[in-house]
C-alpha cells in the first residue's frame, strides 16, 4: 500500500488512487497554485510540470532533458535502448528516419482493410450480447492484432505482448526485478524471429528492420530488438487506451454520441478532441544538467513526468479545456507529443481510432455503461479504461 498523498505540490504520486480515478480535477487544483509539482518518491526527485508552455519547452530541450529513461521509476533501471524513443541527438535522427517510411500516411493507409476486418470480426464475436466489457473484448484486441500482423508474428502472441508491456510500463515502477526478467524473455522471442527473417524474408516489419541500414551499415541486433520493443510498448496500450476512453466518453455523453451518429463528418474533429481530453500517454525525461524552465529549477538526476495530457488541459493554451467539444475547431493538441519525438505511430493510431469508431457506431449507435459497474482505469503513465462494461440498447430505427 502506497502512503496516501496529502501534499500534491511537494509529494505527488501518479500511482495514487485519486490520480488514477480522475486526474483532471486534481491537476486543476495543483495548477491553481503551483506550476510544477515535485516528489521525492522517485529516485533523484521527480518533477511534474503542468503548464503547456513548460512541457513544450522541455520536449524541445534535449540538451538538459534526456529521453533515455521514458518511465519515472522509484529506482532507476539501467538504460535499455528502444531507438528512437530513447535516443537523444545525434543518434536520434538516423534511428527515427529508419522507422518513418512504414508509418507515413501512404503506407499506413494500406492497412485500412485489415483494420476494418479486425473491427468487424471483433464486433461479430460480440454478437447480440447486450452487456460486455468493451475495453477487454474490443479496444484491447484491435491494436494488438494490428501490430502482430505488421510484425508478422503469431496473432496469439498478443496476450504475451500485453503482459510484457504491463510489467515494463507499470508493475516494474515499484518492482524493478520484474522488468529485468521480462526483458530477457522479449530478447529471446525477437532473436528467434530475427534469425527466421534473415533466412526467409517476409513482407513485415521484422524483415524491414533486418534489411534496414544506417549509413550503409545494417542495424545491430540490439538496435533491432530495441526498435521492436518500442513498437510493442508504443503500439498497443496507447491505442487501446485512446479507443477505450473514446468509448467511455460516448457511453457517458449521449448527446455527443447521437450527434456523431447523425453527423458522421464530425468524427475526425471528435477524435482529435478525445485525443486532447483523454491523452493516454505521459512520457518522461531525465534532467542531465541543472536548468530552469518557466522560472522553475530542475536539478540534474531528476526525473520529469512529461504529461501531454496535462498540457492539453492548460487553460492558457486551450479555451475551456475541461469541456469536451467534439467540433472544437482550434485544437493543436499535444497527445502525440511535441518536438523530435512526435509519436511515430500517430497516423496508424488515428486510422485505428477512426475505423473502430465508425464500425462501432454503425453496429451500436445506442449504448451506455452497465449501471453500478465500476470503470477501472489503468495506473501510471498510460491512462485508459481497462474494464468498461457497456450495455447496448435497441436503436430507434424510425428516426
Amino acid at each position, binding site marked *: 500500500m502506497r502512503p496516501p498523498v496529502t501534499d500534491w505540490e511537494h509529494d505527488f504520486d501518479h500511482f495514487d488512487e485519486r490520480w488514477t480515478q480522475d486526474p483532471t480535477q486534481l491537476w486543476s487544483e495543483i495548477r491553481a497554485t503551483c506550476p510544477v509539482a515535485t516528489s521525492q518518491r522517485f529516485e533523484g526527485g521527480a518533477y511534474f510540470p503542468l503548464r503547456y508552455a513548460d512541457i513544450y519547452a522541455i520536449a524541445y530541450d534535449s540538451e538538459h532533458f534526456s529521453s533515455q529513461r521514458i518511465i519515472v521509476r522509484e529506482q532507476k533501471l539501467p538504460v535499455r535502448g528502444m531507438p528512437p524513443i530513447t535516443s537523444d541527438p545525434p543518434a536520434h535522427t538516423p534511428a527515427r528516419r529508419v522507422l518513418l517510411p512504414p508509418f507515413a*500516411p*501512404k503506407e499506413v493507409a494500406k492497412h485500412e482493410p485489415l483494420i476494418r476486418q479486425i473491427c468487424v470480426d471483433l464486433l461479430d464475436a460480440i454478437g447480440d450480447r447486450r452487456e460486455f466489457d468493451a475495453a477487454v473484448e474490443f479496444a484491447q484486441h484491435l491494436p494488438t492484432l494490428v501490430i502482430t500482423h505488421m510484425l508478422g508474428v503469431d496473432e496469439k502472441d498478443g496476450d504475451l505482448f500485453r503482459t510484457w508491456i504491463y510489467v515494463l510500463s507499470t508493475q516494474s515502477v515499484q518492482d524493478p526485478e520484474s522488468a529485468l526478467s521480462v526483458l530477457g524473455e522479449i530478447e529471446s522471442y525477437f532473436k528467434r524471429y530475427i534469425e527466421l527473417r534473415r533466412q526467409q524474408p517476409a513482407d513485415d516489419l521484422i524483415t524491414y528492420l533486418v534489411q534496414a541500414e544506417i549509413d550503409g551499415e545494417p542495424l545491430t541486433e540490439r538496435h533491432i530488438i530495441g526498435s521492436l520493443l518500442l513498437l510493442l510498448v508504443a503500439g498497443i496500450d496507447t491505442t487501446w487506451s485512446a479507443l477505450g476512453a473514446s468509448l467511455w466518453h460516448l457511453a457517458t455523453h449521449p448527446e455527443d454520441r447521437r450527434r456523431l451518429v447523425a453527423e458522421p463528418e464530425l468524427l475526425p474533429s471528435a477524435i482529435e478532441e478525445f485525443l486532447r481530453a483523454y491523452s493516454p500517454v505521459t512520457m518522461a525525461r531525465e534532467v542531465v544538467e541543472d536548468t530552469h524552465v518557466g522560472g522553475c529549477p530542475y536539478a540534474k538526476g531528476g526525473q520529469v513526468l512529461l504529461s501531454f495530457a496535462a498540457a492539453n488541459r492548460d487553460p492558457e493554451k486551450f479555451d475551456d479545456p475541461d469541456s469536451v467539444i467534439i467540433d472544437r475547431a482550434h485544437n493543436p493538441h499535444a497527445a502525440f507529443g511535441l518536438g523530435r519525438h512526435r509519436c511515430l505511430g500517430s497516423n496508424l493510431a488515428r486510422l485505428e481510432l477512426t475505423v473502430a469508431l465508425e464500425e462501432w457506431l454503425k453496429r451500436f449507435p445506442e449504448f451506455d455503461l452497465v449501471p453500478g459497474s465500476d470503470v477501472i482505469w489503468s495506473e501510471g503513465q498510460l491512462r485508459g479504461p481497462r474494464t468498461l462494461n457497456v450495455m447496448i440498447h435497441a436503436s430507434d430505427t424510425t428516426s
Partner: protein
Amino acid sequence: MNDTSPKPYVVSINTDRCQGHTRCCTLAPELFESDDLGYGCVRGDGTVSDQLLEMAKLAAANCPEGAIMLRRAQS
C-alpha cells in the same frame, strides 16, 4: 492590371519545425500532402485561393508545432 488589389495568401511549412503530425494534410488536403517520411509538404506554390483561406487558417491554427505560416505574397 490593377496593382492596388491585395496580393493572394501563400502557405508555407517551416521544415525545421514540422514533425509529421499531418494535421494540415487532414484539415486542408487541397493545400498540403505528406511526403514518404510523413512530413507535411505544400502542394504547388502554396497560393491560397479565397475559397481555401479558411481551411488554410484552420491548418495553421491546429499545427501542434506551429510550423505553418500563412501570409500575403510579397511580390
